[in-house]
């Protein structure tokens, strides 16, 4: 890794570049907040950030520290509550949803509930929160996480948030809204997507200095590979400048 930027800064830039202008994105705590703010400053000034506890359309001038703090409705168009946001998502208004977790499997299912048996957990994790709801009802979800074998596993200890569940057709069979599901995984090693036919995770591009072999080695399940795997450009000077001077001047995510 170059000394010019940190791994967090790279994740933020990669996530930011995925966000489109003029659409809606359900934003969780941490890296997605910085990514949304960066996207608003770069290519997506009309990105509508939606926060779980009621903020819609905030202008993200200062970095929120929590999904309910007052920066999540800074100069926003609406300050409502969690029912309004979750119901807006349930009736199909939210395009992107950001997720994280302690474990992910090849179908993009996520565990943020427990390591070990949930009834006698080795580690009790924070739980679903809004994660399950985002994974259920947003059109396209993007998971952001570090990439290693402990996290990219064959079998989750607990399915907190639905990805493609057990494969093609499983979401629809379970009753989840049609046409929804995992879209991208942004990791410390690259960007992954999903195969249209099998719904299995597929490597699309690698981060600067990362080889395909390294991604495969750090993944605990059989990873599909895109025919032509591309290289993600490093953060640009403009992206880094905005991040460091405007969005995160205190360097919380450097």
């Amino acid at each position, binding site marked *: 890794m170059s000394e010019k930027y940190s791994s967090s800064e790279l994740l933020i830039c990669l996530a930011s570049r995925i966000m489109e202008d003029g659409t809606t994105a359900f934003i969780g705590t941490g890296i997605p907040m910085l990514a949304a703010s960066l996207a608003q400053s770069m290519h997506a000034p009309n990105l509508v950030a939606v926060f779980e506890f009621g903020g819609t359309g905030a202008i993200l001038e200062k970095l929120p520290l929590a*999904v*309910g703090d*007052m920066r999540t409705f800074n100069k926003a168009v609406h*300050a409502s*509550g969690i029912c309004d946001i979750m119901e807006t998502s349930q009736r199909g208004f939210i395009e992107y949803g950001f997720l994280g977790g302690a474990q992910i499997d090849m179908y993009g299912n996520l565990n943020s509930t427990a390591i070990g048996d949930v009834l006698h957990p080795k580690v009790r994790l924070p739980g679903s*929160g*809004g994660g399950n709801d985002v994974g259920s009802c947003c059109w396209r979800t993007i998971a952001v996480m570090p990439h290693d074998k402990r996290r990219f596993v064959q079998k989750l200890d607990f399915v907190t948030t639905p990805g493609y569940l057990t494969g093609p057709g499983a979401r629809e069979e379970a*009753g*989840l809204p049609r046409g929804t599901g995992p879209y991208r995984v942004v990791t410390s090693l690259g960007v992954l997507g999903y195969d249209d036919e099998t719904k299995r995770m597929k490597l699309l591009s690698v981060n600067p200095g990362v080889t395909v072999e390294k991604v495969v080695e750090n993944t605990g399940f059989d990873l599909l590979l895109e025919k032509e795997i591309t290289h993600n450009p490093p953060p640009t000077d403009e992206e880094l400048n905005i991040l460091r001077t405007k969005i995160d001047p205190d360097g919380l995510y450097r």
Partner: protein
Amino acid sequence: MIQRPDPEGFRQWNRKKNKRLVNKLMTEEEAIERFVKSGDYLGFELYGTVRCPMTLTRALVRSGKTDFRVAGQGVHELDMLLATDRIREIDFTYIGLEVYGVDSNVRRAVESGKVKNVVEWSNAAITWRFKAAAMGVPFVPAKSMLGTDTLRRSAAKVIECPFTGEKVCLIPALVLDVGFIHVSRADKCGNSQIDGISGFAFEMSRACRRLVVSAEEIIETDEIRAHPDRTIIPYYLVDAVVHAPYGSWPGEMAGYYERDEEHYKMYVEKQATAEGMAGYVQEWIFDLPNHKALLEKVGMDHLRSLNIRGDWI
């Protein structure tokens, strides 16, 4: 299921609630003494450390009442109850420290088996449980939790929709024995206004047998009547009103003050160990008789330095 839906019982309870505009102003100790009993099912309305009813929580811990069942869409307040072994069962959605990571109190309490029963839900599901109760019906259908272990470890059920044929998740109504909500302003009868986002205050306030409200400011009923569109919680839902300036400290309050980041970082370090947490609870809860003593200990100069608008206190 920890608390079963009972819309008929709730209707009868609500029929008997006092509908008169009377003065319900009291201290936090009196509110806890009169309206909470050991074994109750409790709920707190907040998001992370935002608008967290901490004054009420400290009084609850000091009261010695215990054996509670709780709805766990909480963070900072549940830490205090978990650390003092007051919780028997949890309807669990999220207990964590957000950017500061996993919550050590919940790890200790759940991994050791001190909390006897944990039932999983999503944030939308637990809020829709309140909404169903607020609607006066036994459940609402939803498109969350389907296909996951979250659903299997919840008490929701899946049926085929009689209209569309698709599978829907039925989210059972949840009526709290006692709810706790911290608001921006209330009159002495309980009519309450909240600045900024209102989280799940609207739904939860309508899903409580008893409701204790604490407020940054107490205002005249005439002010409430001048802006009735601002009332999120009408008085007849409320049993007690507690005047608690900085009642969310060390958390934040939209339009009033920011989170006390210095104190919170110290707290995050303390909660990492059982000893550290016990010391914290001793110093910041048990060694203080009431909210006034807490404000004196923190210091008004320090509290005012957190203010967003300087003129309110």
